[in-house]
């Protein structure tokens, strides 16, 4: 037993929990407990919501208590999930009636089971020491596993629209291919593009969406003003965005890391303001509509006799265009990926990664840091521009609201959560973050629990923001932090992310 002087584990945990609860109470007292609403006369009134505040306190305090009581992270995670589920069940039973209240026993029972399982399975297991010496070979096989997983994922993605089409038919599969497939792939491509700048070269770019906007407006304006086809505009949009990247990059790349981030943020905002206010060119807030649709290398996706369906002798369906868009963005994203992977092995790619680790050492060794940064910046911008042109041709309508800081933040969050520098990680993060929140909307189950007006997409950025903080605190190198060395002497020896200590340049 613990000596009387030192507080026992339970006492300490209770003290921690009480403190966490107190802080939560102070944080949530005005912000959660009271909501300001406009009434019928447009006057502000206060609406009291005390249960929310007590729920927040209960959730945080219980999590803190369990975290202090348990050592193993699996036990912690399981126990917290169990207790939260039980709290949710209790809340449902207490405050709701009818169908919602009927779910309460399930939450209570499931939570209790989860808690018991977590405590029984993992509580006894001692803290495993990290096998430091064994990390390198394990990492090497993990690296090979990542490559393999990448190819499997690619196969799944290639088959995805065709399987869905065969399974659900043209009507049923449209939503899945468009909202999930194309939407996610745009973010995968943007994530990979930004990954060159942030993940490889270590330049924090908070205005990446500016290049996305340049690409989108380049295609929209060229197509509507001069009637140029998408296939001419696509490379032009990429070149224009790269040009903008160089133009902006020249003055700003001498700056140190966080200053660079803020200058790119300012540029991104300036571009949005200009797009909003330069009405003669961009039509301001009302945006550019009726942007020409994508063609199958000149053959339009219409029901006309010279259209895609008639040319290939199949029945017309709007799904053809969507599937074509899916493969188009897949190819564009893969080009981004392949270019990145190949460039990493060239001297320029190695210079990027060296620059990320330690800029002063780089300069001392004769690396031209300005050129190195500029190429990363321009290349990232180019892929952003290509994605922008694709976005414009897919939507058929663009306005400045698609290019706000929140969009930059979303892309940055994807790169950060994917583990800066890891290609597969970024793709996974895009799938989980964009697809995950879309999926949540589909789940009727959540509506049954939280009420009919529950909209999970409201919470998307909330989760993104919190996940970014949690990621930095918990695993700053990302979820997939193992990486193959880009270049090696004789023997391929991968380095686990945990073993690499980043230089503080």
């Amino acid at each position, binding site marked *: 037993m613990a000596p009387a002087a030192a507080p026992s584990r339970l006492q300490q945990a209770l003290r921690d929990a009480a403190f966490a609860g107190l802080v939560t109470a102070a944080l949530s007292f005005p912000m959660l407990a009271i909501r300001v609403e406009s009434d019928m006369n447009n006057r*502000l009134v206060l609406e009291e919501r005390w249960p929310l505040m007590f729920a927040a306190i209960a959730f945080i305090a219980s999590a803190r208590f369990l975290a202090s009581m348990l050592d193993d992270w699996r036990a912690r995670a399981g126990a917290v999930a169990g207790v939260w589920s039980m709290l949710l069940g209790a809340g449902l039973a207490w405050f709701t009636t009818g169908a919602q209240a009927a779910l309460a026993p399930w939450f209570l029972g499931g939570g209790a089971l989860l808690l018991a399982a977590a405590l029984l399975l993992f509580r006894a297991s001692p803290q495993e020491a990290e096998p430091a010496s064994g990390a390198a070979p394990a990492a090497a096989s993990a690296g090979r596993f990542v490559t393999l997983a990448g190819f499997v994922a690619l196969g799944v993605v290639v088959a995805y629209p065709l399987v869905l089409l065969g399974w659900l038919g043209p009507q049923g599969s449209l939503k899945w291919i468009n909202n999930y497939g194309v939407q996610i792939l745009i973010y995968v491509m943007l994530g990979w593009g930004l990954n060159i700048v942030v993940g490889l070269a270590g330049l*924090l770019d908070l205005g990446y969406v500016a290049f996305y906007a340049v690409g989108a407006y380049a295609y929209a304006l060229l197509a509507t003003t001069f009637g140029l086809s998408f296939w001419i505009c696509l490379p032009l949009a990429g070149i224009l965005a790269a040009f903008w990247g160089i133009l902006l990059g020249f003055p*700003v790349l001498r700056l140190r890391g966080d200053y660079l*981030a803020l200058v790119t*943020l300012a540029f991104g905002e*300036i571009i949005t303001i*200009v797009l909003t206010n330069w009405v003669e060119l961009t039509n301001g807030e009302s945006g550019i509509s009726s942007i020409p649709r994508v063609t199958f290398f000149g053959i339009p996706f219409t029901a006309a006799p010279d259209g895609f369906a008639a040319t290939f002798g199949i029945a017309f369906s709007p799904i053809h265009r969507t599937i074509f868009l899916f493969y188009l963005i897949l190819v564009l994203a893969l080009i981004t990926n392949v270019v990145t992977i190949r460039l990493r092995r060239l001297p320029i790619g190695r210079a990027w990664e060296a620059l990320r680790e330690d800029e002063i050492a780089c300069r001392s060794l004769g690396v031209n840091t300005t050129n190195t940064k500029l190429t990363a910046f321009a290349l990232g911008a180019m892929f952003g521009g290509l994605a922008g042109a694709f976005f414009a041709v897919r939507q058929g309508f663009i306005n400045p609201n698609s290019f706000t800081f929140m969009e930059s933040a979303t892309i940055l969050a994807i790169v950060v959560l994917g583990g800066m520098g890891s290609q597969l990680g970024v793709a996974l993060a895009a799938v989980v973050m964009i697809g995950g929140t879309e999926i949540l909307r589909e789940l009727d189950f959540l509506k049954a629990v939280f009420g009919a007006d529950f909209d999970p997409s409201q919470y998307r950025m909330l989760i993104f923001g919190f996940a*970014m903080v949690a990621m*930095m*605190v918990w695993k700053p190198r990302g979820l997939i932090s193992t990486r193959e060395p880009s270049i090696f002497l004789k023997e391929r020896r991968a380095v686990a992310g945990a073993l690499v200590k980043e230089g503080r340049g």
Partner: protein
Amino acid sequence: METFLQQLINGVTLGSIYGLIAIGYTMVFGIIGMVNFAHGDVFMVSTFIALIAFLALTTLLGIPSIFLALLLVMIIAMVMTSVWSWAIERIAYRPLRGSFRLAPLISAIGMSIFLMNFVQVAQGPRNKPLPPMLNEVIYLMGEPGAANAVTIAWRQIIIIAATAILLAIFWYVVQKTSLGRAQRAVEQDRKMAALLGVDVDRTVSITFVIGAMLAAVAGTLYLLQYGVVRFDDGFIPGVKAFTAAVLGGIGSIPGAVLGGLLIGLIEVMWAAYVSSDYKNVAAFSVLVVVLIFMPSGLLGRPEVEKV
């Protein structure tokens, strides 16, 4: 001339608010060398706390005097906002000391996104307008109703006076108390200060708390001046206040106030004489130009890069 004087008054009012926020940026940068990207959102949270406190005091408790209500609102906002700032530092920044270079900034961006969306979810996405307060004006030049009259509203006087008083108190704390001495010591050399018995963690926490208190004052004054708050109100004022901190020389407290006043004046003059659509472009351009050509600002020390 009359327009210019009028805009001068408006610019100083706006600049006071920016200056108060800018001190939070500059102090945190001085002491741990990070850009506290979430500070603008802490300011936004404080405007909401002030709004709720104001409504609660006037409608629920029925405090008759608007000045007393404002004073109480300001104190409540200062206390509540400091808890937020303290918790943010504890959760999102303290575990990252000694992590890699960009980690604190990314964490701060995440915190900023989180706060913005938390308030959007908790308080709703719409504007919260209050009826205008303390609108009575004093005529400095010209007769009442004349087109070229120069006026100052009571609330502008309150804003400028409150800023001046708080800056004086704050200056006293930083220069004359042991707390301020510990803070300056940690700013100069964190390791040495720790060796000499300064509690670095506590000092950093207090820095965040002081920054949040000044931001809360700015939030209350912002509510008084504009009467409208929204969940994304922290972003643009935050970037402008950061610009003010950089313009004045980041790390320098008089610089932050000077920078705030200058940014307020630039913004107001730009809106009056050039184009009000592009007034944010003016502030952002100042940020870009200062960072590129004059990174140590007006009153800052040049930064020496050490290996």
